[in-house]
């Protein structure tokens, strides 16, 4: 995919992966950087084209809506009705965009990254849901006014007499439930599995609400407007089925992924080695992750995102996980031979993002996994500084391996075992390690607080904000 070296070294971390006497390969920095720039431009162009198409279709839907409600009626009931149709169309298009954002479309995943797509999903969701809810209130108010009945009796009669309204009401209930449980306060109080299951029902909810959109009224009842609306739903649900279900299943099946070994790295971190056929064909780039589903009791229900700490090599790849939740804790006991299903590879925090002439990689805790895979590739072309912090020496996973990657004047490894007060990663502290950052790309992977701290420090040291890269793991 990217024009750099294929990655090297997936080996148990207790062994040195390379000897320090290995001859130093001269980097082809110029052509490498040009290749990256061209690839980056292509990815961004296709992503922008796709998003412009989403905008164009949305504009057509909006135009059809204007036509349907124009000319505006003179009574309040007419105006309420027009507003309700507008809210319904914009809100529902927003809901479809929410689906597109999490449909794992390669064109968006590559250029934007799943983390930012999910952030956009979370930002848009409240607006889309509010508009759909407003549609219900407005349409009930309008009809109740026309029929001179109470809102409740109008709501009741709409649901009982107009075809497909009752399923739509049930669908909205599913969406609202998913929205409420995604609210930060609610979500922090429930198991991730529960939240995820509730979210699954939104697919059903959105499907249930579909029929009334082309039968009960509004701009999409006849002709090509109706065909367009149906096609939108087919395309959206089709891409989810294709990219989230069929492609991952086919990939997992074809590569026959299985647990080959589980290695304890630190008191609370394990590495899982996964074997498979022809793993290079997965096209993983350094810094990327898969959503992993281990077909083992307690783990098979839900997939979890874990970064690779070792890229595919000799029929093996590796993930390194910290025991944070139920699933990552259970992973320590997963038996060898367990079948593994993967979705991915995902993630845009890859060497393709690099534009500077040197790279600083900062990791804490389990954040070392993606940083570890970035070291090899980037170190082959640019000067690299690796900064890895943990509270205690025994918590530095892969430390031995990282030391083995150090090269004089090419790859410097800073292992910092100690408290935050000892290694605060402030601008001053960072400067003492890596100097000014105006020509550097900075990759950060750790807890949200560390990411923010390092981003701030790096800016103070002159780093271009567009060249400070981190995944939003706090999804």
């Amino acid at each position, binding site marked *: 995919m990217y024009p750099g070296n294929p990655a090297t070294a997936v080996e148990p971390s207790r062994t040195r992966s390379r000897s320090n006497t290995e001859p130093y390969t001269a980097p082809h920095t110029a052509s490498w950087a040009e290749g990256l720039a061209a690839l980056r431009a292509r990815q*961004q162009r296709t*992503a*922008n084209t796709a*998003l*412009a*198409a*989403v*905008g*164009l*279709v*949305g*504009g*057509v*839907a*909006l*135009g*059809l809506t*204007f*036509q*349907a409600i124009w*000319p505006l*009626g*003179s*009574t309040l*009931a*007419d105006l309420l*009705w027009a507003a309700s149709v507008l809210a319904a169309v914009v809100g529902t298009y927003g809901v479809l965009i929410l689906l597109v954002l999490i449909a794992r479309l390669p064109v968006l995943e590559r*250029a*934007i*990254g799943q983390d*930012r797509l999910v952030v956009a999903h979370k930002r848009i969701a409240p607006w889309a849901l509010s508009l759909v809810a407003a549609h219900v209130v407005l349409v009930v108010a*309008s*009809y109740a006014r*026309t*029929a001179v009945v109470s809102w409740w009796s109008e709501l009741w009669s*709409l649901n009982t007499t*107009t075809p497909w309204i009752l399923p739509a009401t049930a669908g909205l209930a599913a969406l609202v439930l998913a929205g409420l449980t995604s609210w930060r306060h609610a979500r922090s109080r429930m198991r991730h599995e529960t939240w995820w299951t509730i979210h699954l029902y939104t697919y059903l909810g959105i499907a249930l609400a579909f029929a009334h959109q082309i*039968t*009960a*009224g*509004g*701009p999409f*009842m*006849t*002709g*090509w*407007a109706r065909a367009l609306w149906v096609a939108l739903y087919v395309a959206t649900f089709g891409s989810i089925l294709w990219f989230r279900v069929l492609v991952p299943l086919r990939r997992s099946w074809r590569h026959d992924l299985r647990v080959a070994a589980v290695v304890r790295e630190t008191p609370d971190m394990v590495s899982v080695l996964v074997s498979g056929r022809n793993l290079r064909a997965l096209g993983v780039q350094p810094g990327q992750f898969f959503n992993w589903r281990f077909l083992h009791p307690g783990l098979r229900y839900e997939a979890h995102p874990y970064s690779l700490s070792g890229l595919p090599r000799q029929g093996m790849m590796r993930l390194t996980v910290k025991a944070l939740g139920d699933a990552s804790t259970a992973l320590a006991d997963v038996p060898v031979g367990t079948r593994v299903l993967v979705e991915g590879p995902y993630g845009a925090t890859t060497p393709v*993002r690099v534009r500077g002439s040197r790279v600083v990689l900062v990791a804490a805790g389990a954040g070392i996994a993606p940083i570890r895979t970035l070291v090899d590739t980037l170190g082959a072309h640019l000067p690299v500084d690796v900064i890895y912090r943990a509270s205690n020496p025994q918590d530095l996973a892969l430390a031995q391996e990282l030391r083995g990657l150090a090269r004089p004047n090419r790859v410097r490894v800073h292992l910092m075992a100690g408290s935050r007060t000892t290694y605060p990663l402030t601008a001053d502290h960072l400067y003492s390690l890596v100097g000014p950052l105006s020509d550097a790309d900075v990759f950060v992977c750790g807890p949200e607080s560390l990411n923010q701290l390092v981003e701030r420090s790096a800016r103070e040291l002159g780093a271009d904000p*567009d060249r400070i*890269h981190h995944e939003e793991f706090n999804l």
Partner: protein
Amino acid sequence: MSTIKSGAIVAATLAGVAGVLVLNPTTEVAPAAATGLVSPSDASGATTDPTVTTGSDDEDDTTSDDSDDTAASATTAPSTAAAPAATASTATYTGAVYSTPYGPMQVEATIANGEIVDISWISLPADRHSQGINNRAAPQLVVEALAAQSAQVNSISGATYTSAGFKYSLQSILDQVGL
């Protein structure tokens, strides 16, 4: 990461809106006139629509099916014969379909001796919003057209589609009959 060109997305959206509004593809009528006009209804009790009772001065109209039957049986000519011949007797004609975003609109009219004696809606959108509008507008258009003996009635405010559909469908009948 400033990879996304939001300006381009907004521009595309506006282009979509403008494209639809300029090309205006949905309000155009589907001229079903070729099939719109059919022969006088001799076997249709359905021609009398309970919602549109004209209450005209002709006593023929107030009577039910059998009067239609006799009228129709008396004159089976209009479908095949030249239009002026049709004006000499009573016959019911079905107008052309007018397409709207809410569904098709269509009327039928009974012509007796060159006079419009009855107009019925046979196709109106059934969604709740349309119902709310048409409960008022549909009968009013009929009354006005019968009074004016023409399809050139004033459009009813707030019922643009209904007015346009009514005029279009009724005019197609009058054109065919030669009124």
